[in-house]
């Protein structure tokens, strides 16, 4: 049984990682064709760094991810706080349902539905505006919102309700009580919500594809457009760099969270 389970897992990992590893190897192959091996070279990396479209798209992606993560974190945290204090059950369910639609719906429907709205509104204003930066930003804020709320809500539930009541009794305004009492206690949820929003935004292709128009490209949309035609290996170099970046970031975040766990356990031991 032990041997069987080990072989099974090994086989799955081999299937999962072979395409990714082959892709990385091809990016270091000097030949222009994937069918012939021409020795180790950084040729495609040099060609990649001379492409301005890749850097423009990367810049767009980072700007959209940062802005949409900041805005959705502010909106989402406020919403989570408000939802926690809301008395009316029906009202709370309505807001929750609306927020959850983009998570349940297939991405393609979210994308085309927003595109239809934007196109219709633009037509009303005589087509002086087009799909682009603004519409992509709005779309990203929209699909990020539920994930921020999802991250903040559990932290709010753990919070002692009497704390903010005490702050109000002692003369804090609601805003002061939020900043001085609630926010420091839920900050870890707010930060993880922000990080999740940022990564979801960087990663999104389908929704962005429908609302980005012809001029504005994020990195995933650029990759889609490039891979429509037969590609040169400089794209494999781009993929390799992206994969390596993700790999490094994942390892760093795991090491940090493992350290946090250990600290937590240590603290409990002392107590």
């Amino acid at each position: 049984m032990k041997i069987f389970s080990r072989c099974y897992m090994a086989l799955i990992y081999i299937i999962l990682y072979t395409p990714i590893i082959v892709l990385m190897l091809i990016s270091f192959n000097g030949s222009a064709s994937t069918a012939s091996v021409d020795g180790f070279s950084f040729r495609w990396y040099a060609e990649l760094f001379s492409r301005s479209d890749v850097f423009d798209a990367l810049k767009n992606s980072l700007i959209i991810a940062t802005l949409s993560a900041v805005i959705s974190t502010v909106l989402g945290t406020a919403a989570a706080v408000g939802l926690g204090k809301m008395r009316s059950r029906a009202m709370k369910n309505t807001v929750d349902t609306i927020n959850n639609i983009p998570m349940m719906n297939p991405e393609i429907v979210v994308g085309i539905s927003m595109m239809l709205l934007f196109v219709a509104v633009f037509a009303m204003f005589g087509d002086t505006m087009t799909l682009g930066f603004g519409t992509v930003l709005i779309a990203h804020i929209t699909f990020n919102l539920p994930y921020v709320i999802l991250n903040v809500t559990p932290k709010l539930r753990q919070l002692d309700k009497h704390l903010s009541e005490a702050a109000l009794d002692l003369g804090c305004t609601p805003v002061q009580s939020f900043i001085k009492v609630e926010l420091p206690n839920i900050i870890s949820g707010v930060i993880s919500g922000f990080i999740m929003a940022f990564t979801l935004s960087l990663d999104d292709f389908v929704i962005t594809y429908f609302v980005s128009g012809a001029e504005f490209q994020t990195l995933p949309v650029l990759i889609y457009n490039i891979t429509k035609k037969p590609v040169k290996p400089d794209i494999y170099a781009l993929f390799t760099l992206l994969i390596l970046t993700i790999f490094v970031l994942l390892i760093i975040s795991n090491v940090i969270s493992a350290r946090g766990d250990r600290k937590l356990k240590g603290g409990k031991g002392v107590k």
Partner: protein
Amino acid sequence: MNKKSLMRSLPVIPNLVWGIIFIVLPLVFVLYYAFTDFDGNFTFANIIGLSDYAQTFLLSVSMSVIATVICVLVAYPMAYFISKAGPQKGKILLFLVLIPMWINLLIRTYSMMAILDDEGFLNSILTALHMGTVRIVGTKGAVIFGIVYDFFPYMVLPIYTVMSKLDKSLIEASSDLGCSKIQTLFRVILPLTKSGIISGVTMVFVPSISTFYISQKLGGGTFDLIGDTIERQFSNPTTYNIGAAISLVMMVLILLSLFIMNKFAGDDTDEAKGGMMP
């Protein structure tokens, strides 16, 4: 609602307004486009015209069902073995399954092209060995493999989450009471991890039925899935109405199947979704 409780829920207002404008209103537009023609007149023609796409719907549904079933069959033992490996080792083994989830789907799909394409890695090995070439890209099998490959981590994660919380004493009890290992699996472990399977199925089935990149690349453009059809309708303003009708039907189809599935599962699927957080 009195004034005080209105004040309390004030922070929800921006979110609610945003949701109505950018989530609900767009869906109203889908409905509107689906039931009007290009000039804005009310019509059933788009919905009736969908019979032309019956073949595409059938193909999409059957391919994503097959892919989802394969995903369950492959991911379940994987999750089981990982949960058996102990907490320390299990963490690393799970991490290895989840890494691909963080790599963009376009890149993962294209990485398969590098191997399976007519001039790809596999065929160049076969040619070097004088074994001729195989044509993989362009077949339905390639697309199904692509879906399974791309969404596999989303199936392992929720199953593993439920399985790792499983009370070990239940398994001991079942073997004490005379169950064989196989009986324990089918009569104890499987029913208790059903909620994990259901949220895994949701997470794989919904994106796979609406995919268009995987079928464009690995299908080589030889056949269309619903996603491809929708994508094409929306690249030309004159066919937005048909596109909206197809999207509407697909959305209803998906929501209906999720609803039916959740009926079978009861309410305990939320717990498994909690496992989404890394």
